[in-house]
């Protein structure tokens, strides 16, 4: 029977990893590590899981160990945050390049300097081109649900790519809320034992990680690109099957009010919840607003976003990370380029917000909607890139 548990985002992720019958977890146990692996190590110590927990000396080693374990055909999980993800950067590319279906929980937090520790998306946005499938959860429930689905997506023979499940640092990682969990058997049926096509096996030796020079490297990268482009189809398939066992419907985008919205906000993660509450209030006042919240950020949901903007007259994109010196934040750059590519001429306002865990209140999102509605009326964008709630 499904039951409702009081879980923080970290705990929800750890619980999902436990139910997913993970074989190996390799993680660096000290700051900026999260409770995700701390709790998982307790499961191991208590004999609640049959997993090998490898305590390594850095995140670079953590991801290296995960890659090695994954290549043997094991189901592998790890977690990190902030500077830890940055230190892993090199190995992230190796995990995706060697097609290792690792699942990683990332509590999104700011990067130094100055030292901060609080929530924003600078860490994952800094590694957004690493070839991983990137999911953003809005709450503990979504984090739990996506981790279980992530294993299925990652291990699909046509995908075979690592998946990062992102949850906002502190706002989700450390806040407790009710989450409905499936029973162990249901998850077990949903996630059969992983079957690797070419596992490391002393009986059948093979070479992994060999040199590929200008004559072949490019082709391997194209295979990777093909695989990540195939992922949305597999993600949808996984979502459908997961809905059957959980009753919860996921997809590539989480949309609210988009059937008739004239102004909308695109945002990732927990901000989607605040924005939805604001949009609901505005709709009661008769203003046609909506939310586009990508669950899947990589591969970028280009077709889905263009389709969702059908009736829009203006769009705001909220970036919780700063791309220093760039025309827009990372999310907005993607949105603008795809609108341009599809000849969708729409005023777009970009807001960088919430850096270093600065709170984003409903009043601020309301102001974003007000300005977007104004742009919808006038068609004019005075300042394309603005910085919300900051002292100037």
């Amino acid at each position, binding site marked *: 029977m499904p039951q409702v548990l009081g879980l923080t985002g970290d705990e929800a992720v750890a619980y999902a990893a436990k139910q997913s019958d993970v074989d190996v977890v390799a993680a660096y146990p000290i700051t900026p590590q999260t409770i995700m692996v701390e709790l998982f190590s307790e499961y191991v110590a208590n004999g609640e899981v049959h997993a090998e927990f490898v305590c390594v000396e850095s995140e670079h080693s953590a991801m290296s160990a995960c890659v090695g374990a994954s290549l043997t055909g094991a189901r592998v999980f790890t977690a990190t945050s902030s500077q830890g993800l940055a230190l892993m950067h090199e190995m992230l590319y190796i995990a995706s*390049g*060697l*097609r290792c279906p690792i699942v990683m929980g990332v509590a999104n937090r700011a990067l130094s300097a100055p030292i901060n520790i609080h929530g924003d998306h600078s860490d994952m946005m800094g590694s957004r081109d690493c070839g991983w499938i990137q999911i953003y959860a809005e709450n503990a429930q979504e984090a739990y649900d996506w981790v279980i689905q992530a294993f299925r997506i990652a291990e699909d023979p046509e995908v*075979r790519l690592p998946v990062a499940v992102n949850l906002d640092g502190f706002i989700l990682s450390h806040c407790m809320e009710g989450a409905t969990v499936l029973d162990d058997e249901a998850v077990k049926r949903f996630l059969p034992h992983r079957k690797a*096509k*070419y596992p490391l096996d002393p009986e059948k*030796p*093979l*070479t*992994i*990680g*060999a040199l*590929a020079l200008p004559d*072949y490297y490019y082709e*391997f990268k194209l*295979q990777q690109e093909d695989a990540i482009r195939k992922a949305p189809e597999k993600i949808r398939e996984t979502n459908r099957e997961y809905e059957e066992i959980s009753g919860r419907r996921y997809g590539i985008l989480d949309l609210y009010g988009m059937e008739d919205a004239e102004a909308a906000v695109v945002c990732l993660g927990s901000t989607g919840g605040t924005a939805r509450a604001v949009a609901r209030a505005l709709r009661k006042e008769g203003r046609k607003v909506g939310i586009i919240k990508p669950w899947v950020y990589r591969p970028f949901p280009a077709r889905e976003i263009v389709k969702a903007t059908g009736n829009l007259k203006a769009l705001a994109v909220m970036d919780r990370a700063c791309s220093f010196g760039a025309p827009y934040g990372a999310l907005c750059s993607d949105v603008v380029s795809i609108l341009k590519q599809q000849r969708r001429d729409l005023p777009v306002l970009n807001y960088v917000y919430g850096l270093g865990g600065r709170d984003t209140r409903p009043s601020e999102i309301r102001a974003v909607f007000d300005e977007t509605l104004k742009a919808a009326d006038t068609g004019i964008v005075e300042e394309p890139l603005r910085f919300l709630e900051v002292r100037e």
Partner: protein
Amino acid sequence: MAGIILEPGSSVKYKTGDWRTFRPVVDPEKCTHCLLCWIFCPDIAIRRGEKVAEIDYNFCKGCGICASECPVKAITMEEE
């Protein structure tokens, strides 16, 4: 996929000897067959031989470690 090579040990087919700028040459008169060069060679490009160390020029990259380690200066590096 992912550059996996299903045939094990295939690197023997990849001759790296043409990377070399200087070639190590063993003087059989001086060589005492102590095999320090054989131990130090990072590319396993030295064979023990019957009486003197033998260089495998298919794989020797010419790093010169053998010449540097040889206690009797029996190996000299000559430009290719």
